[in-house]
């Protein structure tokens, strides 16, 4: 049975029909990618899963159970999200310590000290970062804090919304490696949204291409690597990702 099962999801914001009938299923321990350009609805799918966007029609099931709106507190201990912009996703007046211990306080954990220290170590930031404010951190360090925050409640599902697109290439590599390592260590299930085919190909076993709120096609990583796409749109994306070529029309 798939861990995450979405059938015919529709999301409407007033007159805007952002997601039009998307279905996907992700098994436990898998990394699933969603690729698309801006306005394709890829992030909205992610936000619908965690309840930040309204589900207008269709269903989202985790472990066979349809999610309620609003989500139950237990949901947040199963699924967490990492946002795109590490400069916007951390509260500017809260120290790293506060960011990491607040979820523990909300869910009534007792051994907060130890958990915060462990979470920092797990994402490769030592004790020295614990009492810093976001403005004292680089972009990559902030994103590590965001990952630590997402993992501190020990969820099994991580929703990654363009987690590296705001970072420099060398920092991107570090964060991708971190996410990769955490997944294999903890058997996490990922849904990764990105506009970058190379990132998705590197991280995910399967992926879905989206355009205008609809799924264009679903591919396995091997298909992508061999450039075996059946749809023109996917082929265009693949060609564009190779960089500029003068020969093309």
């Amino acid at each position, binding site marked *: 049975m798939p861990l995450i099962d979405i059938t015919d999801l529709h999301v409407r914001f007033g007159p805007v029909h952002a997601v039009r009938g998307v279905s996907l299923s992700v098994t436990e321990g898998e990394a699933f990618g969603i690729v698309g350009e801006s306005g394709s609805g890829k992030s909205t799918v992610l936000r619908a899963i965690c309840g930040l966007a309204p589900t207008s029609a269709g269903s989202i099931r985790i472990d066979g159970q349809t999610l309620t709106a609003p989500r139950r507190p237990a949901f947040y201990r199963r699924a967490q999200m990492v946002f795109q912009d590490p400069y916007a996703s951390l509260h500017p007046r809260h120290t790293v310590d506060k960011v990491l211990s607040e979820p523990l306080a909300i869910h009534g954990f007792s051994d907060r000290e130890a958990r915060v220290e462990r979470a920092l170590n797990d994402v490769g930031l030592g004790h020295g970062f614990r009492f810093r404010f976001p403005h004292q951190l680089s972009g990559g360090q902030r994103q590590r804090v965001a990952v630590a925050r997402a993992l501190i409640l020990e969820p099994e599902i991580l929703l990654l919304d363009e987690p590296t697109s705001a970072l420099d290439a*060398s920092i991107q590599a570090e964060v991708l490696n971190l996410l990769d390592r955490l997944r294999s260590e903890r058997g996490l299930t990922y849904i990764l949204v990105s506009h970058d085919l*190379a990132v998705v190909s*590197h991280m995910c076993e399967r992926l879905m291409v989206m355009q205008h709120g609809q799924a264009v096609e679903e591919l396995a990583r091997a298909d992508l690597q061999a450039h075996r796409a059946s749809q023109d749109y996917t082929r265009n994306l693949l060609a*564009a990702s190779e960089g*500029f070529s003068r020969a093309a029309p």
Partner: protein
Amino acid sequence: MTLLNVENLSVTFPSRHGPQRVVRDVSFRLGRERLGIVGESGSGKSQTGRAILGLTPTSGTATADRLEFDGIDLRNASHAQWRKLRGARMSMVMQDPKFSLNPVMTIDRQLVEAARRITPNRAEARDKSLAMLEAVQIRDPARVMAAYPHELSGGMGQRAMIAMMLITEPDLLIADEPTSALDVTVQIEVLRILDDLVTSRGMGLIFISHDLRLVSSFCDRVLVMYAGRVVEELRAAELSQAKHPYTRGLMGCLPRIDGGTRPLPTLQRDEAWAR
């Protein structure tokens, strides 16, 4: 033929820990070609571009042993001289069209105003504007002319912006991350437009970007910047034979569609590069 000659350009900003040199002794010559400047955030690539146009923020100072555009010394150029040069002979395209286009004026007014710098005749300026929008592959120029910037999509806005910068047919265009805010497929289209303009009009182009792969596929030559310094200059086609460890590290740490190493090689920075 040398269009731009830069020798030992430095840009300094004051900070709490004393003056901070964000651009350090950058030298290069530009002909009628595509030159890429690549670097990560904080490498000084954008400040280099701004300093050439005399757009260094007022808190900073730019110095150079030589800064010549077509034989004109830019270091001591007066306001009047800059007015004649900027926009007319040298232009700049910024990353986000939202910040560069005036939000309360239609594209029409902004374009025609720019066009009238070279043709005082209003009707002629308008014709030229329409032609320019067509040249940047806008299919419905009349509609775009009537629109306000916020009514255009990102790609359209960036094209309108490029049209505005190119309408005066400048000899030098500095494009600072002109396509980073755009989708990949749109990105390629915008690059194609720039490419045509360089080839057909013999314009010099400085293309500033963080995207090494894109720059190497688009430009003729590439300067790689690190901590304010040019660490390597090489022909774009020879990027795979780069010598400097930073350039090689930057190339290596990019994930690849057709598989690659796992985990990704990371960049080990060396203090000595910044010296």
